[in-house]
């Protein structure tokens, strides 16, 4: 009944529209479901408007569909109901799920090749491109907003504790030494971290060139298994656990919650997303700086390169292939140096192409905003290895929860790092086996 009514209304609407537009000109609509809020949402709309004004055949319509997990679920539900959007923004932990859905997704390299748009894989940053490419090096989804992990330092707190703010800690032992001095100077929270699994386990492993799992961190196939309980990871997590006991590291939450403790001046150091730059800049009432993510100097090959987080744009399979041409045109527009450089400079996300990086350099942005190029320097520090190009594990949303839980049990002193990481591997592998079973 409701369906019949809505269909009738749609027909009436279509007739009215046809009558209103004198030139019967067909504009193909491209639905773009995303999860960008606030200033980022404005920027997304601006990009779509600019693209729509640049040509007449296609119209990109950005639609905010809730947070990352919500918009992904919505897109999957729409696909199952036979009416998927053209483009959906999916966060990096959903990559394996999307990639396993072979019939549902149109790979970007195919899309670009078929529509004959300009597309050069070498134009993209290796660390960004590698995360979203298959084992043959073909790009599956379009990189959009990518960030990585950096260390933020409260310079005022450093001065108060007699530390040199011009010389922020470069290694984890230096972080410990600084934290001790800060604590002695009366700082309640010397060090904290946002996104603990992403920063202290996932990217930590890449930064020290040790594997998170077999089969190239899962890039090599569904039969991958976790191995994030290696000696390097155990040592680091145990250190953090000890620091938590001594009050040098204060746990503030799993995701972005710890950031507020840094911007309020409560915590003196935080490792978190480079995408937090704009937020800190707007809210911190003290002198602060961005520094490179710390590493252990006694680990051979460290620092390697960090891995990214953020989201990419996925093209879902369409009934009418005519729209692919428009999506390809839009992606080409999106990766142009001007659009990318602007996106990078206003949001704090890293530029996804080398051209956008060069353009930003040329515009003098990094000289005026010191520290904004640290993220990209970390990503491009060395060419990515099998351990550092990213990770691709099925059911990773659950696995990240499991890692978070096991880490919390170390911070509260219930488990040692070794036991907790062993348990994380065991429980995580159960999730991977489940995913393998569902997708084989």
């Amino acid at each position: 009944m409701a369906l019949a009514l809505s269909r009738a209304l749609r027909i009436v609407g279509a007739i009215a529209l046809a009558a209103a537009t004198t030139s019967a000109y067909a504009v193909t609509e491209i639905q773009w479901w995303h999860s960008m809020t606030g200033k980022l949402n404005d920027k997304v709309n601006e990009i779509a408007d600019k693209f729509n004004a640049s040509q007449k055949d296609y119209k990109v319509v950005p639609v905010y569909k809730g947070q990352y997990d919500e918009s992904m679920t919505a897109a999957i539900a729409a696909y199952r109901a036979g009416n998927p959007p053209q483009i959906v923004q999916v966060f990096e932990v959903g990559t394996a799920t999307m990639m396993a859905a072979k019939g549902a997704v149109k790979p970007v390299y195919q899309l670009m090749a078929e529509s004959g748009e300009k597309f050069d894989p070498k134009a993209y940053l290796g660390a960004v491109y590698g995360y979203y490419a298959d084992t043959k090096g073909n790009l599956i989804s379009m990189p959009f907003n990518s960030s990585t992990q950096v260390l933020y330092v409260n310079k005022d707190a450093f001065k108060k504790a007699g530390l040199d703010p011009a010389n922020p800690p470069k290694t984890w032992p230096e972080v410990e030494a600084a934290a001790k001095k800060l604590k002695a100077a009366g700082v309640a929270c010397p060090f904290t971290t946002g996104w603990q699994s992403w920063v202290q386990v996932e990217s930590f492993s890449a930064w020290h060139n040790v594997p998170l799992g077999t089969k190239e961190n899962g890039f090599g196939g569904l039969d991958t298994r976790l191995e994030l309980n290696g000696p390097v990871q155990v040592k680091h997590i145990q250190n953090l656990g000890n620091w938590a006991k001594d009050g040098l590291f204060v746990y503030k939450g799993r995701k972005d919650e710890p950031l507020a403790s840094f911007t309020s001046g409560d915590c003196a150091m935080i490792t978190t997303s480079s995408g937090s730059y704009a937020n800190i800049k707007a809210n911190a009432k003290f002198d602060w700086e961005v520094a490179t993510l710390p590493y252990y100097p006694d680990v051979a090959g460290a620092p390697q390169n960090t891995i990214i987080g953020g989201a990419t744009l996925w093209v879902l399979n369409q009934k009418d292939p005519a729209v692919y041409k428009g999506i390809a045109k839009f992606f080409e527009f999106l990766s142009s140096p001007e659009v990318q450089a602007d996106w990078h400079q206003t949001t704090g996300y890293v530029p996804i192409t080398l051209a956008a990086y060069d353009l930003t350099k040329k515009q003098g942005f990094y000289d005026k905003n010191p520290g904004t190029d640290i993220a990209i320097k970390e990503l491009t520090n060395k060419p990515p290895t099998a351990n550092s190009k990213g990770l691709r594990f099925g059911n990773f949303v659950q696995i990240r929860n499991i890692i978070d839980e096991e880490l919390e049990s170390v911070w509260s002193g219930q488990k040692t790092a070794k036991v907790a990481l062993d348990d994380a591997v065991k429980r995580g592998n159960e999730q991977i086996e489940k995913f393998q079973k569902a997708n084989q």
Partner: protein
Amino acid sequence: MEKRVVFASPWLPYALVAPQIAITLVFFFWPASQALWQSMLVQDAFAAKTQFVFLDNFKDLFQDPHYLASFRVTAVFSALVTVIGLSVSLLLAVFADRVIRGATVYKTLLIWPYAVAAAVAAILWVFLLNPSLGILTLLLRRMGVAWDFLLNPTHALILIVVAAVWKQISYNFLFFLAGLQSIPKSLIEAAAIDGAGPGRRFWTVVFPLLSPTAFFLLVVNVVYAFFDTFAIVDASTHGGPVQATTILVLKVYQDGQQSLDLGSSAAQSVILMLIVIALTLIQFRFIERKVQY
């Protein structure tokens, strides 16, 4: 004499209940049967590949120690929310019923929290009890309690119980107050003349007469604690630390909606459905007998 109403027409009674039956079929039996079917499948997120695995999803669940622990958490949480919620609101209702001056003000203020959305209620308590910024945390610290619900499982449980109870008190209060006001004053006065004090009057006269209301609220509160508290937990502790506050309904959501593991999520919702059916049966079979209508 036959006390029941008997319809003359053979089809009229069926026609009258038909809309209700239709609604139940469409909105309860249909989705429930789909959940039952889905619970025996393993499917990728896009439903490209589907395998029938019979009871494997259930087997996996009962081998997961965290899932089993979640039963205990749910039982403790529901019991606390129901018992505390009912007793506090009964106490408030009895006092509000006796207030003579400014009664409307008290009543209005007590009903207010009901207008607050569950997620907002949760965030409000998270602010008050935030380990680094909360006002109540500051007071607790002064009293020597190292409050930190992010790492301490007991503290996390206290947080969600307090938020869930606070949210539900208004509803209970409203029903208890209405129940109290419908008790004839003459009964209470008669008891008073016979020499019964306020405490005795309450337990021998008022409380038995309130029992239908209390029973109704018991059923409603148990259902509330099982299902409607989802938003509170999701917005405050997200089930942490280490699943210490992962109640069953939260896990259904996390596995189904966030992790897209529909088979396991459906299996969990089937189990949840069985629990609620069992609880409701128990309540009507054993507790209702003690209720005096």
